């Protein structure tokens, strides 16, 4: 009793949807509170037995669900209840809620099959039928489609246009979910193409447009029907869809294009509707691009669009141009000015589109100019578009192994220029390209080193974190190819400038490693030179070098001028000597030596900058700059700094001594340090070659190496190692602290002293355990940097070649991991393999396959012209059915084939004649309708045999057919085409 009263109360005092909306807008108690209260009410009301209350509640719920995204899946059963109400108003609410909230996984879908069937077959109320159809078009599942196919089939020939067109639209979903429905419904769908009612035609064409876009091949046989609609229809909506269909079909059947191109151009010329005109243009440029005249006409229209004030048309014009660009570049070049003009349009979409076009215009001949223009635009644009420009310049120029770049010196300097653009965020890409080019293109390395130097030397760049990756590439390049540098000392200074402490540790480690390489190069050159001078001019040396440093041969004037400017950054280290520091230092340090040994002053010509003083200066500079870093927290930095400093420690003594004992000892060349230096420089000058993708697989796994072993027990070993290693770290740092850290406040160094030992030990442990990740996650150059530490001890005994090789090998493997597509070297640009795997055409999914299989089966009988249906995997039941279908269709299709063959034979001559006399175009057009009709007659005959209940309609059509003499001239293309 209580429940009934409450339901009555609900009915009388229920909030309607309008009340709900009003309440929501008033927001007296806040939106979320109001909604949760409303939901509570709805939950109660929806259980009511009164259908009115229930449907009202459901309506409110669907409002909240669709606009406020509240889940309403819990009410699915109530939705079903309301759907089955006998009142139209309730039913409508129920169906609306169902199409809003049901999905394929909604469990109650099983319950509604019968309800839907009942509504679909409702003879009295067509609106209920339409409700069911609308709802099905959203929620139909495979099961529903299977069960309701007969009803839908009946509706496809309903006399009520209103219902039939909805049934037709629904077929799309049914085919998609349940391809077997094709066998039942397809014929009737095709018949509807002939309907005289424009609504029906419009609906069918919509369906075929969607079907064709997924799988054009299956619908080729319908080309005659489509063609008739294309020519006859006056409805723009239909024509647009028709053009879309033909755009797909023509690509498959080139012969079709000859027939289609004329009506398409006709529409293009005649129509006043921009949408239809644009569709014609798009069809021509995408599918009929080999027809010169049509393309020319289309380009004229495109130009109209481009010059229009309406931004929409502008955008579409650019869009169409970019479709036409690959095949008819002239069309773009013709409109070059307009396109470039729109680069500065206010609409980002238009800008982007015109950028795409500009990039399409790029070729070997104009790449320099276009890039110049674009970089200028990039300078002026907002950050986002600026990066888009830079990104597309980078990707275009690097396309196909820098195919369009002839002058790499130019390109490399362009890269340098781009990195200096304020908004540039393309660091990663520029970094990759710099390294990539340096490895591929031998000839460009000097320029690359120059560009790298310019980047490194500019302290301002160090504050822009987008550039860090570029700087790391620059550092790596200048270390790796230091032999091309005009002034290596300058590089060392740049690499160690104080502002480098702004860099992230991983990149700083690269800097330090590069400095190491440069230093080795300098020392090596110095030694070489000393040896040579020692042998040829035994007396010449030191003083002259001082002089030569001042004179600076070749282009190094620039370098000397640069040097002071950036030695400003050395201030921190040598607070007293500011501007002239490097020179003064060299004088100061070298001064007494020169006096000591200054026997001669024969001027040494040529690039003799590797003076004793300079070398000593550099050694001091490095020690000074890197000393504080011995307490670094970062293991990479720490390791490299220690390598470098230990190395200096090792050789410094001898270098200093060597001059004292010069006279006696010089020729003996047995000095330990020079040997070490030589070895190191050999190690560094080894070039990192490109490695093939498959290289790693070719390396046999050494015996006894278990790669997949669980490394958990390493912990034990690590624990042992841990202690000594951390001690050694701290020892070293104290040592250097004493030696060098004088310029640093004690507090700071203390701070650095304590935690690092802990942090680094942790890091070391982590690294040990997850070494794999460390290696892969790091940069290529760091991988290269791993080289020296591994080699250092081994280099001492140079017999140990095997291990060295192994190290080299692993290193190469690591490199290959980083850039997996390197292969055979080519004189100028190193080619990669595995770069261009031809992308196979997009395969239709299995569902499409089965759908297209079914469609083809129906269209072509058992005469499967394409292999699609053959490869179509079908379950037993469907194959059984297929068998039946075959039996039925066999005779008619045979007839069909025979007819076709006969016609082909008959008309081979006319067809060849036709192709010769192109002037008969008009005549041909006149004939075509007749031919189509005759085509349809054939269809009609075929269908007559199978389906008797459509007899009458076809007969009347047959009667209307043209006399036989037209037939004798018509078929040019096989019967299933035009």
């Amino acid at each position: 009793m209580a429940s009934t009263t409450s339901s009555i109360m609900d009915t009388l005092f229920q909030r309607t949807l309008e009340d709900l909306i009003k309440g929501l807008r008033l927001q007296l108690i806040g939106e979320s509170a109001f909604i949760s209260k409303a939901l509570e009410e709805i939950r109660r009301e929806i259980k009511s037995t009164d259908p009115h209350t229930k449907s009202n509640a459901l309506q409110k719920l669907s409002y909240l669900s669709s606009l406020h995204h509240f889940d309403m899946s819990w009410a699915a059963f109530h939705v079903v209840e309301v759907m089955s109400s006998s009142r139209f108003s309730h039913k409508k609410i129920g169906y609306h809620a169902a199409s809003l909230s049901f999905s394929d996984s909604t469990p109650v879908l099983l319950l509604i099959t019968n309800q839907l069937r009942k509504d679909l077959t409702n003879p009295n109320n067509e609106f209920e039928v339409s409700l069911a159809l609308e709802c099905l078009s959203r929620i139909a599942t495979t099961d529903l489609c299977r069960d309701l196919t007969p009803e839908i089939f009946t509706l496809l020939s309903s006399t009520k246009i209103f219902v039939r067109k909805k049934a037709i639209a629904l077929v799309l979903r049914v085919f998609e979910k349940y391809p077997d429905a094709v066998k039942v419904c397809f014929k009737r769908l095709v018949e509807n193409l002939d309907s005289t009612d424009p609504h029906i035609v419009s609906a069918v064409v919509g369906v075929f447009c969607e079907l064709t876009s997924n799988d054009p091949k299956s619908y080729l046989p319908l080309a005659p029907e489509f063609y008739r609609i294309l020519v006859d229809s006056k409805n723009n909506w239909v024509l647009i869809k028709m053009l879309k269909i033909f755009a797909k079909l023509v690509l498959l059947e080139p012969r079709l294009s000859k027939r289609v191109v004329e009506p398409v151009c006709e529409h293009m010329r005649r129509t006043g509707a921009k949408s239809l005109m644009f569709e014609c243009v798009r069809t021509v440029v995408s599918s009929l691009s080999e027809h010169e005249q049509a393309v020319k006409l289309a380009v004229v229209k495109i130009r109209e669009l481009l010059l229009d004030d309406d931004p929409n048309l502008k955008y579409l014009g650019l869009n169409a141009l970019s479709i036409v660009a690959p095949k008819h570049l002239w069309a773009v070049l013709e409109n070059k000015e307009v396109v470039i003009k729109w680069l500065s349009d206010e609409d980002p979409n238009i800008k982007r589109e015109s950028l795409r076009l500009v990039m399409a215009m790029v070729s070997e001949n104009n790449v320099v100019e276009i890039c110049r223009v674009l970089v200028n635009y990039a300078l002026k644009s907002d950050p986002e578009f600026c990066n888009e420009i830079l990104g597309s310049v980078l990707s275009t120029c690097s396309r196909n192994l820098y195919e369009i770049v002839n002058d790499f010196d130019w390109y490399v300097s362009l890269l340098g220029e781009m990195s200096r653009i304020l908004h540039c965020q393309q660091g990663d890409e520029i970094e990759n390209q710099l390294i990539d080019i340096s490895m591929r293109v031998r000839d460009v390395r000097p320029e690359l080193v120059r560009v790298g130097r310019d980047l490194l030397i500019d302290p301002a760049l160090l504050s822009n974190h987008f550039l860090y990756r570029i700087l790391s590439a620059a550092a790596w390049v200048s270390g790796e190819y230091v032999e091309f540098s005009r002034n290596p000392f300058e590089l060392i200074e740049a690499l160690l400038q104080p502002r480098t402490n702004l860099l992230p540790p991983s990149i700083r480690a690269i800097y330090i490693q590069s400095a190491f390489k440069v230093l080795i190069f300098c020392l090596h050159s110095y030694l070489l030179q000393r040896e040579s001078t020692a042998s040829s001019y035994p007396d010449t040396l030191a003083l002259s070098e001082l002089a030569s440093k001042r004179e600076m041969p070749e282009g190094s004037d620039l370098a000397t001028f640069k040097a002071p400017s950036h030695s400003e950054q050395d201030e921190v280290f040598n607070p007293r000597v500011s501007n002239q520091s490097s020179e003064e230092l060299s004088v100061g340090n070298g001064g007494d030596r020169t006096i000591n040994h200054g026997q001669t002053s024969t001027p040494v010509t040529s690039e003799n900058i590797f003076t004793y003083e300079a070398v000593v200066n550099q050694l001091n500079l490095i020690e000074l700059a890197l000393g504080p870093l011995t307490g670094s927290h970062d293991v990479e930095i720490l390791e490299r700094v220690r390598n470098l400093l230990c190395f200096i420690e090792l050789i410094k003594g001898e270098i200093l001594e060597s001059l004292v004992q010069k006279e006696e000892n010089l020729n003996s060349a047995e000095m330990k340090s020079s040997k070490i230096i030589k070895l190191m420089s050999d190690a560094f000058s080894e070039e990192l070659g490109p490695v093939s993708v498959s290289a790693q697989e070719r390396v046999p796994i050494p015996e006894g190496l278990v790669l997949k072993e669980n490394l958990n027990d390493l912990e034990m070993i690590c624990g042992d190692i841990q202690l000594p290693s951390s001690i050694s770290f701290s020892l070293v740092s104290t040592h250097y602290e004493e030696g060098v850290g004088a310029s640093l406040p004690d507090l700071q160094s203390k701070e650095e002293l304590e935690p690092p030992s802990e942090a680094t030990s942790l890091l070391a442990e982590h690294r040990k355990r997850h070494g794999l990740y460390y290696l892969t996650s790091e940069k290529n150059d760091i991988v290269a940097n791993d080289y020296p530490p591994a080699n250092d001890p081994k280099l001492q005994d140079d017999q140990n070649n095997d291990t060295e090789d192994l190290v080299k090998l692993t290193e190469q493997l690591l490199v290959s991991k980083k850039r997996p597509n390197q292969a055979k070297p080519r004189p100028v640009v190193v080619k990669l393999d595995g770069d261009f795997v031809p992308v196979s055409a997009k395969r239709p999914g299995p569902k499409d396959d089965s759908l297209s299989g079914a469609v083809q089966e129906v269209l072509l009988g058992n005469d499967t012209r394409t292999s699609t249906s053959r490869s179509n995997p079908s379950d037993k039941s469907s194959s059984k059915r297929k068998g039946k279908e075959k039996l039925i269709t066999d005779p008619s299709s045979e007839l069909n084939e025979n007819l076709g063959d006969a016609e082909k034979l008959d008309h081979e001559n006319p067809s060849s004649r036709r192709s010769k006399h192109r002037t008969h175009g008009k005549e041909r057009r006149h004939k075509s309708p007749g031919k189509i009709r005759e085509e349809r007659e054939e269809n009609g005959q075929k269908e007559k045999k199978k389906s008797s209940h459509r007899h009458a309609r076809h007969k009347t059509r047959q009667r209307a057919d043209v006399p036989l003499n037209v037939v004798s001239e018509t078929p040019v293309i096989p019967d299933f085409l035009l």
Partner: protein
Amino acid sequence: MIHFVILNNRQGKVRLTKWYSTYSQKERSKVIRELTGIILSRGPKLCNFVEWRGLKVVYKRYAGLYFSMCIDQDDNELETLDIIHHYVEMLDRYFLNVCELDLIYNFHKAYYILDELLLAGELQESSRRTIARLVAAQDSLVETAREQASLLGDLVKQAM
């Protein structure tokens, strides 16, 4: 085909959504948030097309309301603009000078009109007069049903 239709106002409040492709409830609100953000941020004199996740969104502003439809890459943008305009005209005819409030209070009516216009993401009726007639016919059906219901309500009241 049309994947979905969204109506929102200048403040980003959604007034109507209709989904023809499958999107989960979560995806729906994400899509709406994303798209209203993109569309509202575009200035008045820019083109009406936005490329989005490999699809295209065609939008148009009528007074304070933005009508957006999402279509496939190779669908016709101008045609879609026409469909939007078509819909707006129909709303205008039905509500007689439609305004946002009409859509707020009669959101289900707006849906029913849209259902007559589009089915399964395709335009199914291009004649305004036909749609007006169909909607009116259904309205009268609903109306009679409601009268019956209120009659029932009266009876119940009397019985009490």
